[in-house]
């Protein structure tokens, strides 16, 4: 037991989750047992998994072979630094979310709850296996297990047609992506069933086939990560799922795609080309901007968060592209910096997006409303949720001293370091890319102010909100864990970067030099750039307190309460606040190229005036609709072959026979 390696622990935990899944199916009658026992146990597993991941970062890679799988191809497992960091991410985020879930799911009835517990733990196990797999078959099995279980989680509430549609779209795109991955492994494999990653590492591909493999991987993993134009499922599926599940999907599952991309590009492929990086950057930035713009115009809070996930994935992918460029250009140190930045951002996103999703979960749970136009003022009725969510909002808006800022800071530093590159055109392009990243970050702040302001601040837009109850204790605990993660990751980046060093060493055989100390982050050199969040934080707090008490001391602290200023218009009511649509309107106007806007405006004499502004995704209209039509047309053509007359069928056979006879002469 004591000499068990992290890998043993890891697959032990996977097994444990599978058992919990079975147990979930077993107690179809006892809902209390599921929420009271299974979910806490699952959370413990997640915590252990986080520890295992950290241990895996520290220790050398371990191998293990499970006696299942294909005859010549048992499941190979491997726990190295890269898997380690993502396992840690998975465990840490899943712990918070699962603890939250233990409270959140209490109101479900037994039958569905049991199934939910089954798929939930299968989902966790699937994601962990994806990170552990060391051969193509195990990887694909885990990958699809992950997709399938999450599909069943998404369709938990399958009575709603929209949710069914969302789940269908999700599984379809996931499956197509999976087939692309199969083809990618088909390129990488050595024939005769050499499917282990070890073999692929050793194999040498020509640049052409390497590029083919990379593009297939980009397609396959991009489909999972929500890369534009493969993102269409994401804003449908994430809102459809129960909130803890959305949190896991957004926070963790998308990262498995990032993991896969890193694994294939830097570990399995033995050649990296600069143009891959340029492509990835272009796609990433497009995704980031597209996502954030659409997030800004959403009026359903979970859709808003889903779109913002697309944005973050885009930023991560841009970082990935930059890493490839640096690495292909032989700039190991800079590549290490960008890789660190993108890993850091992945971890951060897991925390704050998880936090935000569960936050919305509590709102949904106590109000039953997802449309932001019917919410508001909740900070007074559910303070715990509101204040904990605020942490996540500030973090995702990329504000110091929280974690979102650190990764953006690192990424921007990386962009600033490009002038070293040998390609002149890249030198020109990169600054524009940096500008785009900055723009996306700033827009994210806009989105988050909208989100928080409309949902939690101001006046409640409906009366029933006044009776909204705050989240229960398990929920609070889970949210607090995630919020704490946001704060700590923001305050002690040096430590985290120390942890991430093995990954860069593994993939790029180079580590990021931190010229600072435990409280100051200084990549490359302190001369170039440095950032000490702790100092920053303490100073701000100190000044705030000094001023606060100073003012109290020197002047009287007298306060009166009064009605707010109504500028002479007495009938102020809650509906006069900015609605979600109103908040999105400027963005809709500026970026109208991206979207097709449908809006209903009421006429002036409408007694119950309603306004609806709906921004449709143009990618759907321009890319997916035509494909669907084409398929329908083709199948119609195929159907005409099959028109019932036996004579025609005989003619087919006859023609085939004659054709083959002529053909084979």
């Amino acid at each position, binding site marked *: 037991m004591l000499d068990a390696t992290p890998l043993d622990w890891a697959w032990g935990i996977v097994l444990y989750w599978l058992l919990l899944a079975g147990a979930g199916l077993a107690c179809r009658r006892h809902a209390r047992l599921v929420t009271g026992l299974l979910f806490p146990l699952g959370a413990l597993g997640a915590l252990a998994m986080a520890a295992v991941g950290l241990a895996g970062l520290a220790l050398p890679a371990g191998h293990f072979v499970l006696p299942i799988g294909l005859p010549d191809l048992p499941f190979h497992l491997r726990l190295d630094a890269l898997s380690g960091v993502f396992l840690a991410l998975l465990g840490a985020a899943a712990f918070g979310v699962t603890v939250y879930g233990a409270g959140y799911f209490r109101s479900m009835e037994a039958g569905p709850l049991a199934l939910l517990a089954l798929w939930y733990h299968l989902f966790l196990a699937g994601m962990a296996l994806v990170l552990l797999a060391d051969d193509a078959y195990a990887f694909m099995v885990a990958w699809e297990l992950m997709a399938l279980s999450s599909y069943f989680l998404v369709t938990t509430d399958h009575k709603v047609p929209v949710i069914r549609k969302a789940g269908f779209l999700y599984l379809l795109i996931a499956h197509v992506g999976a087939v692309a991955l199969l083809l990618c492994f088909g390129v990488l494999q050595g024939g005769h069933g050499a499917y282990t990653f070890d073999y692929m590492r050793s194999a040498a591909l020509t640049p052409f086939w390497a590029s083919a493999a990379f593009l297939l991987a980009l397609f396959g993993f991009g489909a999972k990560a929500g890369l534009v134009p493969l993102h269409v499922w994401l804003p449908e599926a994430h809102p459809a799922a129960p909130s803890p599940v959305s949190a896991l999907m957004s926070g963790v599952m998308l990262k498995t795609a990032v993991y896969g991309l890193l694994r294939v590009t830097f570990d399995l492929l033995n050649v990296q080309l600069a143009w891959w990086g340029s492509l990835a950057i272009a796609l990433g930035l497009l995704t980031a901007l597209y996502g954030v713009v659409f997030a800004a115009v959403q009026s359903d809070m979970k859709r808003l968060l889903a779109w913002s996930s697309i944005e973050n994935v885009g930023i991560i992918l841009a970082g990935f592209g930059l890493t490839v460029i640096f690495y292909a250009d032989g700039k190991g140190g800079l590549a290490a910096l960008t890789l660190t930045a993108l890993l850091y951002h992945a971890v951060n996103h897991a925390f704050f997006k998880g936090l935000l999703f569960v936050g919305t979960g509590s709102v949904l749970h106590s109000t039953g409303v997802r449309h932001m136009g019917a919410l508001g003022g909740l900070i007074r009725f559910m303070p715990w949720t509101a204040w904990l969510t605020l942490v996540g909002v500030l973090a995702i808006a990329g504000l110091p001293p929280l974690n979102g800022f650190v990764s953006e800071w690192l990424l921007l530093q990386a962009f600033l370091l490009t002038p070293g590159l040998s390609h002149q055109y890249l030198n020109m392009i990169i600054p524009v890319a940096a*500008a785009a990243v900055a723009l996306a970050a700033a827009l994210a702040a806009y989105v988050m102010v909208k989100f928080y302001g409309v949902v939690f601040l101001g006046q409640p837009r409906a009366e029933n909100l006044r009776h909204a109850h705050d989240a229960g204790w398990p929920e609070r605990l889970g949210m607090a864990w995630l919020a704490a993660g946001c704060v700590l990751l923001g305050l002690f980046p040096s430590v985290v970067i120390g942890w991430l060093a093995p990954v860069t060493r593994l993939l790029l055989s180079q580590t990021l030099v931190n010229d600072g100390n435990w409280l100051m982050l200084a990549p490359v050199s302190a001369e170039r750039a440095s*950032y000490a969040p702790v100092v920053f934080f303490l100073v701000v707090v100190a000044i705030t307190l000094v*001023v606060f008490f100073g003012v109290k001391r020197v002047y009287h602290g007298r306060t*009166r309460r009064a009605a707010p200023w109504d500028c002479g218009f007495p009938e102020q009511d809650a509906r*006069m606040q900015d609605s979600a649509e109103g908040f999105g309107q400027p963005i809709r106007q500026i970026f109208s190229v991206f979207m097709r806007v449908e809006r209903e405006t009421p006429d002036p004499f409408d007694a119950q005036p309603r306004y609806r502004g709906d921004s449709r995704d143009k990618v759907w209209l321009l890319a997916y609709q035509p494909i669907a039509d084409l398929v329908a047309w083709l199948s119609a053509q195929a159907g005409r072959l099959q028109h019932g007359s036996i004579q025609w069928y005989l003619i087919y056979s006859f023609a085939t026979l004659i054709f083959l006879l002529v053909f084979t002469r």
Partner: protein
Amino acid sequence: MTAGLILQTFQTVLAILLAPLLMGWVNQCRAWLQGRAAPPLTQPYRVIRKLFHKDAVLAHDAGPLFRFAPYILFACMALAAGIVPTIANDLPFSPAADVIALVGLFALARVFLALAAMDIGTAFGTLGARREMLISFLAEPALLMVFFTASLISHSTELPVIVETLAHKEFVIYPSMAFAAVAFWMVSTAENARIPIDNPTTHLELTMIHEAMILEYSARHLALIEWAVALKLFVYSALGIALFVPWGIAPAGDLAALPLAILALLAKMLAGGAGLAVLETLSAKMRLFRAPEFLGTAFMLAVLGMLTHFLLEA
């Protein structure tokens, strides 16, 4: 180090104290240019003092967020004043936050103010918050790009290093900085709620941006906000100076140059304030939806600056 600490505190306190003065000076110049009788130079101090003495009036639903925002705002601006080299160049704090962190700092303050404005839930608060965020999402990256141009030249994002490179290395003309300068001016007008983006002296709620956000504030809270606003203007001017006319800022560890530095600062501030007043008088406030175009131009100029750096100076 101790010298550094002394300098640091000295400079920060100095900035905090001088900030309303600059505001007053700008208002005075504007009054003169508009042919009005000018308020005294110390008018801002009086306003602040008056406000501190009043009883605070809070809306019924004002929550902690609303009440704490002014303090956080003030603290952020104070820290900013501590980071930007105004008179001296070796500041123990400045490694804690480079230019990117500085932008983050401004963003932090802005977001808190916007959230506070939405807390009560009046029509104008949310309106102001929305407009503020709208303007900032273009202004912020533009500002970042301006900094990037400078840091591409000096190979650092540390303000002291930038100033060191620009001021105390051999004199070079950087065309890219010209673009940057224009962009910086456009951004700073937006960020400080000045004409042509916003009008600090407006009393018509519908045209307000910044003022609409702080419509609900009174007394000590309002005083802190006014002060913070003045401080912000000061910091921006200091930034402009540090980036574009950095000569005269005392290099590291040379206290003798300090008095000269202070004089230089005062001179530059006088000139800058006057210049700002002139520009404000000459231009008129633009409609809200022209603002994105204006700032978009600024953004483009900043990016263009970087590109020219690669073309001409790399």
